[in-house]
């Protein structure tokens, strides 16, 4: 803990002026905005008649102009879009040190290499949490402005934990990306991995085996497959993937030859 606090302060300092922070928040706000557009279209028959593609999409998603539908959309955005945006955050946080050439300056310090990585993981977790909260806040604001019928308490009690758990399940998948960022010495390897997992997540989920592919699990849990219940093995597999990613990251950072 003695070493973690200065490492955390240093990590927060590093991100002080990073424009990438705002880019991720803007990107993540697209989902609630899109939900708001669906609500507008479904409410206005004239616009609905002109926007056949969006109407078809809204109907395909079984979207209706109420809070359960809107919160469901936001949750699914975290489960699917989060893999991309959280993945982008992890790629940047861990890959930037090599891209900026500063990795070599972090390896012979009184603050241990492990503490520096743990500080990065904490900042990553906080960043993902802030994105999820902002997604919810923008959604709440838009839903209120669009005068959706007032939500009832049982709905919130049911939907908010699913939202929180979807965020957690998506965020913990960032650890393998940290490894790829260090191993690939930059952003490219982890971003390539994110793109691959997104494609595979869609294909594997479509074939019905998504519950056994960790990167499909958050999306399925969020309700994309029609329900939230998944076999216990799905969560275990996801947890093992995350732990393996964390372990590999620590091992590589502590034991590999740092030639760049």
């Amino acid at each position, binding site marked *: 803990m003695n*070493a973690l606090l*200065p*490492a955390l*302060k*240093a990590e927060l*300092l*590093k991100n*002080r*002026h*990073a*424009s990438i922070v705002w880019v991720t928040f803007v990107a993540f706000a697209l989902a609630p905005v899109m939900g708001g557009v669906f609500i507008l279209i479904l409410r206005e028959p004239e616009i609905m008649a002109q926007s056949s593609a969006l109407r078809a999409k809204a109907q395909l998603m079984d979207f209706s102009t109420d809070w359960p539908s809107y919160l469901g959309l936001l949750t699914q955005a975290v489960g699917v879009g989060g893999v991309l945006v959280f993945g982008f955050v992890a790629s940047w946080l861990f890959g930037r040190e090599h891209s*900026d*050439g*500063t990795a*070599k*300056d*972090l*390896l*012979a*310090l*009184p*603050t241990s290499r492990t503490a*520096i990585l743990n500080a990065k993981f904490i900042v990553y977790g906080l960043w993902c949490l802030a994105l999820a909260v902002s997604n919810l806040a923008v959604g709440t604001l838009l839903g209120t402005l669009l005068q959706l019928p007032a939500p009832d308490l049982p709905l919130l009690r049911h939907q908010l934990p699913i939202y929180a758990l979807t965020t957690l399940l998506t965020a913990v998948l960032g650890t393998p990306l940290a490894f790829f960022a260090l191993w690939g010495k930059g952003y490219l390897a982890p971003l390539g991995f994110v793109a691959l997992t997104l494609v595979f997540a869609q294909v594997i989920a479509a074939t019905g085996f998504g519950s056994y592919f960790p990167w499909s699990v958050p999306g399925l849990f969020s309700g994309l497959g029609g329900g939230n219940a998944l076999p216990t093995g799905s969560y275990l597999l996801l947890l093992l993937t995350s732990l393996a990613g964390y372990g590999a990251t620590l091992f590589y950072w*502590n*034991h590999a*030859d*740092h*030639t760049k």
Partner: protein
Amino acid sequence: MEVLRTHSLTKRFGPTLAVDGISIRVQPGEIYGFLGLNGAGKTTLIRMLLGLIRPDQGEVYLFEKKLSARFDAWNDVGYLVETPAAYPDLSVVENLQVYYQLRRLKDPKRIPALIDQLKLGTYAHTKAKNLSLGNQQRLGLAKALLHQPQLLLLDEPTNGLDPEGIVEVRQLLQALVAQGATVFLSSHILGEIAKVATRLGIIHEGRLVQELTNQELTQRLHRKLIVSTLDNPGALRQLSTLGYQVRLNEANELEITDPTALEQPEKIAQVLVEKGYSPRQLYRWEEDLERYFLRIIRNRPA
């Protein structure tokens, strides 16, 4: 106590033997200059000294402590490896604040004092990405000096600096040594290293070819007296008759390597004038470090 010691340090990358059995010892207060061509193994060696690369064989000792994952004296070591790097969106002050935290320092006045010492005051709030190469190098040096280390490991510390900056760094290193620090620096700028180092190590193809003090270097440098007259072959015959070691070089000048001639060149001038070979030019030529270095690595048995 030796500040730095390596024993048979060896590192291989695939088929390439980057560092081959290097053993060096650096005493407190020394400025140890490490000379080598690009790719000779200098940076690999410095990275091994910092634990960034694990040797295949051999050990590193810093302050008599064996370098391992448990080594805990990193605040006694400052370093600058290859090109200086900084967080591009952070200012000079903010970049230093990052390392102030990571080095767990407790002296808030240290950053402004260091910025002043390295003449970065004008750029204190300039983002690193907008700094010139020379000022990026100063920022790199500031990071290395932030915690007032006992040992400085510097890889090409004068890269990108203008002549004034080079002189400042030289004076800075000498001042640090006067205050009790030890410096280990690598460079391919041989003239610069010759001015600052108290001891030199020459590395070639991963091997330590020669290690010598500044005094030993001075003794080993080739010296000769270069003389030119209107009739150099005639002057050559005359000087040879008098017992001097003399030859005609490729430029058809007389080269005299006789130690007595080097000590008293005025005697050569006097003899030549008396014999009717008045010198048109006469000067002492001394091999510089660059030529010495090339002679050493070229004459080395394969």
